[in-house]
């Protein structure tokens, strides 16, 4: 790897992160407009307008916050999203970070994200953010096992924990066909890790906005950017693990990857606008009693399929 390639890899990831986060916001705006039947403006400009507004908005701070945590949590959450996105292979030859343990690394990003989301709610020393934070941890600790099982499922046929190897095994048949349970289960993880829609436990409306109720201005901008970036990174990983990544006819690899990633984003955003928020207690039971056994099943199916 030459230093040019090295810098090109880093730049690709960073550019994809920013443009992707914008795309997520624009898709969310477009789907919201579709649901409400109201078009408040140009959907392509709305994310930029909101970002500019937050850029100029005054900031807020609470009584005796845990300042280091308050400052670090939004930044590091965005960093985690960037790290996740860096793991995604763009084509056969271009993988920004091709770790031999890429799948485990993504697995580690999920609990680290839980830690940061918890800190985000913990740091302000205010009631509703704190309630949201405790709730979110119950979610964050419940879905990681599901995520591990479905990702181990895609690692079986690849005989490797490398994400590029997982993509390579899908040249003929995508994992979404081979392991039909995997993608739906993994989507739940995606809603959880970016606390989107039915799994938005921390910024929920029944807590005045939860952790969001005590933030304003640029911190809010950074936090929502991080959230969109995390949704994007998750979608890219899901596209690589289940939808064949960059594989596809006619078009070049990176284009396929982008299309598939955006397809997953659209799916997640639609789910977010369709399902009501689940009760934290109910999700705990669902995750352990329904989703976890289903992911066992998915893994068993993947195991049998890999041996055939």
């Amino acid at each position, binding site marked *: *790897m030459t230093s040019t390639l*090295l810098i090109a890899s*880093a730049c690709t*990831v*960073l550019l994809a*992160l920013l443009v992707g986060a914008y795309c997520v916001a624009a898709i969310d705006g477009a789907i919201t407009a579709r649901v409400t039947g109201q078009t408040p403006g140009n959907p392509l400009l709305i994310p930029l307008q909101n970002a500019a507004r937050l850029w100029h908005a005054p*900031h*807020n*701070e*609470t*009584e*005796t916050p845990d300042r280091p945590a308050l*400052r670090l949590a939004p*930044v*590091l959450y*965005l*960093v985690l999203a*960037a*790290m996740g996105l*860096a793991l995604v292979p763009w084509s056969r030859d271009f993988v*920004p*970070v*091709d*770790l031999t343990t890429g799948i*485990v690394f993504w697995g580690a990003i999920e609990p680290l994200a839980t830690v940061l989301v918890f800190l985000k709610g913990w740091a*302000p*020393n205010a*009631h*509703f953010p*704190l309630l949201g934070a*405790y709730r979110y941890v*119950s979610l964050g*600790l*419940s879905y*990681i*096992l599901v995520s*591990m099982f479905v990702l*181990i499922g895609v*690692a079986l*046929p690849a*005989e490797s*924990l490398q994400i590029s190897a997982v993509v390579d095994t899908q040249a003929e048949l995508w994992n979404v066909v081979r392991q039909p349970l995997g993608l739906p289960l993994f989507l739940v993880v995606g809603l959880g890790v970016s606390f989107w829609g039915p799994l938005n436990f921390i910024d929920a409306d029944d807590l*005045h906005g939860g952790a969001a*109720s*005590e933030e304003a201005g*640029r911190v809010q*901008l*950074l936090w929502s950017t991080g959230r969109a970036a995390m949704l994007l990174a998750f979608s890219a990983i899901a596209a690589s693990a289940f939808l064949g990544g960059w594989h596809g006819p006619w078009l070049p690899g990176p284009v396929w990857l982008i299309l598939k990633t955006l397809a997953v984003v659209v799916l997640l955003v639609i789910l977010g606008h369709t399902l009501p928020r689940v009760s*934290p207690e109910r999700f*705990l*039971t669902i995750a*352990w*009693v329904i989703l*976890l*056994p289903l992911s*066992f099943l998915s893994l068993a199916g993947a*195991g*049998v399929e*890999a*041996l055939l």
Partner: protein
Amino acid sequence: MELKQLLVLLLVVIITAGFGFWVQHVPGESKKSIPWPQRAPFLGGGQPDTHAWSRFHIRYYPMTLLLIAFEMEMMFMYPWAVVYVSEGIKALAEMGMFLGILSIGILYGWREGAFKWQ
């Protein structure tokens, strides 16, 4: 090879973190202090009796302990997955047994209500 990959990762981390800190502390942002009334936690006009940080009843705590036990075991599964195809039916049997044992733990936890709010 792996080290160069890590270098890219490091570069991405540093630049993203720099961007994040820059957004939070852009030069020119007014650094005036925030008045106490604004700092108080928002309770719809109400007031708290105490600090929010206190001993809080985390009602899902049995689940967290179960998770730790389970997760420990999951760490064996990653290396297992890599050699699964080459080891064949033996690997399937072994992991089937292993997961069977742990499923009993989950079943027991479920029956005893460990996945409900305490």
